[in-house]
């Protein structure tokens, strides 16, 4: 039977010394006396924080937070609150702080630590109902700029806010808007980059699906600021729901006169078309994206000229990422100073991260810039599952770098990540524990980027596969003494010599793991993988002391590499036949199967 109420009594040192145990006993007696034992459960918790108010207790789900509780109060609490549902007012702590603590106790702190700006509406409003968007001040920012602000003032406001490109490079958005506004020519374009290609990153998808109008409004405001009348959203074809929602939103906004001709009867006109990308990672690079929009092969070209001068169809073009556009209306409505009050000096505002890997809570989190990696991973993310030790976090998608535990207290912003050899990227964040081999990880990411190289420039096209081949032989145990030097030299050349951002960042996983986990590379050269992940460097072994001859491993082995007779231990693994799949280790009830170094 499920309990109706959970009574959480703080059993932290401070409350215990204030006799919380006596309170607990008194409550238990009263609950018993009122026949509520089946409905009310007492749980002792660790320290709740406000120690000077102890003993404290929290009643869930009501969220009532009692302070300075004495055993004498127990009868009244049980009678009034637990039985009749009327919290004992005189013992309640009603400050906002109390509410916050009360709320957090049984919840996932996943949400509490976040600061939602861009994703504010995601999960709250119906994305297919434009009125719900309007209810959250939707299109009010567009109305404001069209009726109260000059285009220059809009660009200046964005510049003053310090907003930087959320696609990864962090270029000052207002500056970009100013460039496009200042570029000569009557015809200009606004392009929204929704070609979110980083594996595991889906903040742009979430925003387009959950709050599409916010992106449209941001684009319209940008169009007004730079003097464009036509816009494109370049979105991956792999995002059908986002495409549907955006198209529905476009139709609704058109119907209501919030897009199209003569928006809000101000004389300003702006149209948006949706174009689908065919799935090439490189098309997230702005010049490649523009080439693809124009109907050409999606390949980057050298900059300058920048798209702000010579972009789509050779015209001045503003190209920003989905999340960047998502910030715009909030800045217009709340002001640049408000935006600057969030985040850090050099990187104001929030950033959405896609948390994944070896972390308890995975998903999208929006936090102020300057939040530390530790807060993100251990508080919001809930830490590493199964009590394992944190090893590294890879930020910025497949071309980001790995950051080790010693830098967990680094506040996240564009510069700090770069200093650590990583990047902000679009906000991917993959957490790793001791079971992850850093060499193998670098190999994995390089495999992705090498595959996604467009093939135009030599360093990226040939250099990445060359690095990959070296990494493959290292993880196979065939590494050569000078391979680490070769990786470093190649990585450096590829970073500087490549044409576009793909090649210029692709060596990061290798270079950063070489920087922080060089010893793992060196170990691989002598045939050892400490994470026991590189199958060529390990062997499985049955501990004869621990084996009981239960026969489970022999039956589970897919290649018949285990020999033994039931009830007659020990069993043994034929190392030559073994394919090192690890099944025996998984099925062994006695933990007798161990992984050893192959040599």
């Amino acid at each position, binding site marked *: 039977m499920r309990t109706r109420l959970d009574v959480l009594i703080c059993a932290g040192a401070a409350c215990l010394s204030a006799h919380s145990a006596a309170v607990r006993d008194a409550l238990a007696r009263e609950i018993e006396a009122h026949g509520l034992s089946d409905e009310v459960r007492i749980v002792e918790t660790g320290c709740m924080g406000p120690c000077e108010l102890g003993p404290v207790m929290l009643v869930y789900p009501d969220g009532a937070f009692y302070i300075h509780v004495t055993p004498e109060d127990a009868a009244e609490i049980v009678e009034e609150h637990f039985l009749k549902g009327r919290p004992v007012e005189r013992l309640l702590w009603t400050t906002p702080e109390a509410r916050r603590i009360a709320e957090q106790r049984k919840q996932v702190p996943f949400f509490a630590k976040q600061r939602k700006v861009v994703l504010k509406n*995601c*999960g709250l409003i119906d994305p297919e109902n434009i009125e719900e968007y309007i209810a959250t001040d939707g299109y009010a920012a567009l109305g404001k700029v069209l009726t109260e602000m000059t285009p220059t003032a809009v660009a200046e406001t964005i510049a003053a806010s310090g907003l930087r490109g959320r696609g990864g490079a962090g270029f000052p958005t207002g500056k970009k808007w100013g460039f496009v506004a200042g570029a000569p020519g009557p015809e200009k374009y606004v392009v929204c980059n929704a070609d979110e290609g980083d594996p595991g990153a889906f903040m742009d998808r979430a925003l387009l699906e959950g709050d599409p109008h916010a992106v449209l409004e941001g684009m319209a405001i940008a169009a007004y600021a730079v003097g464009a009348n036509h816009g494109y959203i370049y979105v991956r074809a792999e995002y059908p729901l986002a495409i549907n929602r955006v198209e529905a939103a476009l139709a609704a906004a058109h119907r209501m006169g919030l897009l199209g001709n003569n928006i809000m009867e101000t004389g300003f006109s702006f149209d948006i078309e949706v174009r689908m990308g065919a799935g090439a990672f490189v098309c997230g690079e702005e010049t490649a994206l523009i080439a693809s929009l124009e109907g050409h092969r999606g390949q980057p070209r050298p900059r300058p000229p920048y798209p702000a001068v010579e972009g789509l169809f050779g015209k001045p073009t503003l190209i920003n990422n989905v999340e960047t556009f998502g910030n715009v209306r909030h800045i217009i409505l709340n002001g640049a100073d408000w935006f600057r009050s969030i985040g850090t000096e050099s990187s104001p505002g929030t950033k959405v991260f896609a948390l994944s890997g070896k972390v308890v809570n995975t998903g*999208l989190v929006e936090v102020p810039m300057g939040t530390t990696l530790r807060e993100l991973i251990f508080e919001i993310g809930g830490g590493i599952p199964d009590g394992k030790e944190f090893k590294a976090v890879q930020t910025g998608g497949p071309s980001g770098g790995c950051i080790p535990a010693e830098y967990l207290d680094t506040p996240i912003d564009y510069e700090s990540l770069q200093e650590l050899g990583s990047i902000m990227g679009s906000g991917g964040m993959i957490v790793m524990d001791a079971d992850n081999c850093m060499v193998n990880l670098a190999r994995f990411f390089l495999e992705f980027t090498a595959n996604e190289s467009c093939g135009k420039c030599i360093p990226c096209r040939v250099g990445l596969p060359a690095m990959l081949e070296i990494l493959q032989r290292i993880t196979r145990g065939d590494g050569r003494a000078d391979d680490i030097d070769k990786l470093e030299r190649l990585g450096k050349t590829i970073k500087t010599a490549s044409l576009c951002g793909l090649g210029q960042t692709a060596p990061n996983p290798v270079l950063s793991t070489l920087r922080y986990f060089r010893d793992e590379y060196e170990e691989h050269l002598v045939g050892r993988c400490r994470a026991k992940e590189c199958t060529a460097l390990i062997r499985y072994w049955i501990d004869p002391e621990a084996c009981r001859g239960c026969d489970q491993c022999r039956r589970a082995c897919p290649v018949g590499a285990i020999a033994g007779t039931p009830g007659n231990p020990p069993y043994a693994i034929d190392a030559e036949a073994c394919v090192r799949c690890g099944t025996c280790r998984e099925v062994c009830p006695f933990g007798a199967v161990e992984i050893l170094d192959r040599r």
Partner: protein
Amino acid sequence: MNLEQLRKIRERAAKELNLRSGKARVKVIVGMGTSGIAAGARDVLAAFLDEIGKRELTDIIVTQSGERGLASSEPVVEVHLEGKPTVVYGHVTPELARRIVSEHLVNGNPVTDHVIEVRE
């Protein structure tokens, strides 16, 4: 549409969003982003509609939204009861949806073991 009309729509819609208009007492929001749908949000939405229909409850609005971020807890469902804190459920199954209808929406008792967030 001009600014004045926009303002009017906002005022009207804001009321609806706050549940103060009409006879709706409860609003159920099912997260229907790609993560939610992949985890089975469509079946959950259907279960809510079906259970509410069976019980002939007329003061409940069921609506959809995008995703709130906690992908590992999808499908996520948010319940607004007038005058009560907003409760967010994670890992909602069609069975749990029916329980939420009977225990939370009808009887006012949140299904505590599946709550992942409570908001004022």
